[in-house]
């Protein structure tokens, strides 16, 4: 009898512990299907320094619209404009050349995490203006890597209120600026597949699937297996399909 009571008590304690652990782990890795009302999205591509990212960024906006966003695509926008527009965005995708802590526009001006001067812009200058950004995607080389002066774009976006941010810790493949009618290859192909896959999965699952798809397509990862997502797990779907 005592043993049975002891067993019941133990079971109850075990159940409480498991529940507490589940709640704790759930809090550690929150998953959210975008609850904010901000459906404004901007995607940016350009033809610059050997790369044509226009098709990838354009296709991203098409998929986003089908997922319930009011997405607009811009070709060759300057960082000054991107910096201002991001304050009222729910989603930002910048498909430009990048490096640790910064991305560059076609004027040679930077969007940096911090430490840039002159005509460049620092995410660190934001107060809490990125609070409405559900997903900030820095789609360039090493945009999730840290620079001793310019900091880390992904981390800074999160610290300024973005719910989730993504970049890459290594270099990634672009698409040739002379791609002509073959622009849906390499980097643009990855962009297209990532946003296609995002219709069905949360972003981290879309990212691992797309890296795998890239290998099946090209026989190499092209750096796309080195994605880094900080903040919270999100789904980009805003409407059921």
């Amino acid at each position: 009898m005592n043993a049975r009571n002891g067993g019941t008590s133990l079971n109850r304690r075990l159940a409480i512990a498991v529940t507490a652990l589940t709640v704790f782990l759930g809090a550690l890795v929150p998953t959210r299907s975008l609850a904010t009302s901000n459906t404004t999205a901007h995607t940016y591509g350009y033809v610059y320094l050997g790369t044509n990212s226009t098709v990838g960024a354009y296709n991203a906006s098409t998929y986003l619209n089908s997922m319930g966003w009011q997405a607009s695509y811009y070709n060759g926008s300057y960082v000054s404009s991107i910096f201002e527009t991001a304050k009222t965005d729910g989603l930002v995708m910048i498909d430009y050349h990048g490096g640790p802590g910064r991305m560059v526009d076609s004027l040679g001006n930077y969007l940096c995490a911090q430490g840039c001067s002159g005509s460049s812009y620092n995410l660190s200058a934001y107060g809490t203006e990125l609070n409405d950004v559900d997903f900030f995607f820095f789609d360039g080389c090493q945009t999730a890597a840290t620079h001793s002066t310019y900091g880390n774009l992904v981390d800074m976006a999160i610290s300024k209120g973005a719910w989730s941010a993504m970049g890459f810790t290594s270099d990634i493949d672009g698409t040739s600026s002379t791609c002509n009618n073959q622009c849906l290859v390499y980097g643009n192909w990855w962009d297209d597949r990532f946003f296609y896959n995002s219709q069905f999965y949360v972003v981290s699952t879309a990212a691992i699937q797309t890296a795998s798809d890239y290998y099946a397509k090209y026989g190499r990862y092209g750096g796309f297996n080195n994605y880094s997502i900080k903040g919270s797990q999100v789904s980009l779907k805003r409407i059921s399909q």
Partner: protein
Amino acid sequence: MRKKVFGFAALATAMVIAIAGLSSNVTLAGSTKQAEARAGAAAIAGERVDKLKDLEPVEFPRGVEYRFKGQNATYGMDERSNEVTSILWHNERGTNFVISSDEALKQAYKTARRYFRQFDVKNFELIMAEQVDHGITAEYHFLWREMRDGVLYPSYVTVSINPETGAPMLFSAQNFDVADSVRPKLTREQAIAKAKSLASSDTTKVKAADFDVWILNAQPAPRWHVELASDDGLKVEMFDVNDQTGELFPGGHYVQKSLPPGL
């Protein structure tokens, strides 16, 4: 005159019927294959066929892969062989490396053998084994490629393992038979010379020049992948050189999305 008009109308009608018939046969063939693939995926998933959601088929160089989303995973089925070529488990995510890399490798072997019949038939070499922290997720990642006489062939299998539980997160494989052994026609130096002849003046350092056999339009495509970098390593240009012709594959000159030197 009336007879001629009637004759023309009859011919046109017959052509429309023939084209429509041909078209429906093509559609039927496609849907039949997709239905077979769906049945195959359902058997692997242990789910009812009608519970699988059709995703858009993916066109890979080897051919079409049909995709079906089930309750717990998404399955990719090869159009040619109707074998499973990819499985993406939906809810397998871990952030901490709890299990050892040896245990993860053991689980990866188990997954590869379970889903890829060719794994113990051909000679697969483990060419990538890494543990990657993606921020909100992490993985142990393993990649095997078929290797013969030091040359990589198109068949491969890759498995990602949840670092907390040891469960598979992703499996992807392809079996592509290349009957004859392939020896490169171009030397490494010739492939590099081709790349350099097309490169910008500031990318002269050879970062990589590797030969393998990949696939183009469902045919074996021996290729050289050459990467040329600027002196400071910031700018990298890439070239996929067709080993058979010495020319670039379509779209085979591209750059990484990195900051160029001087910026």
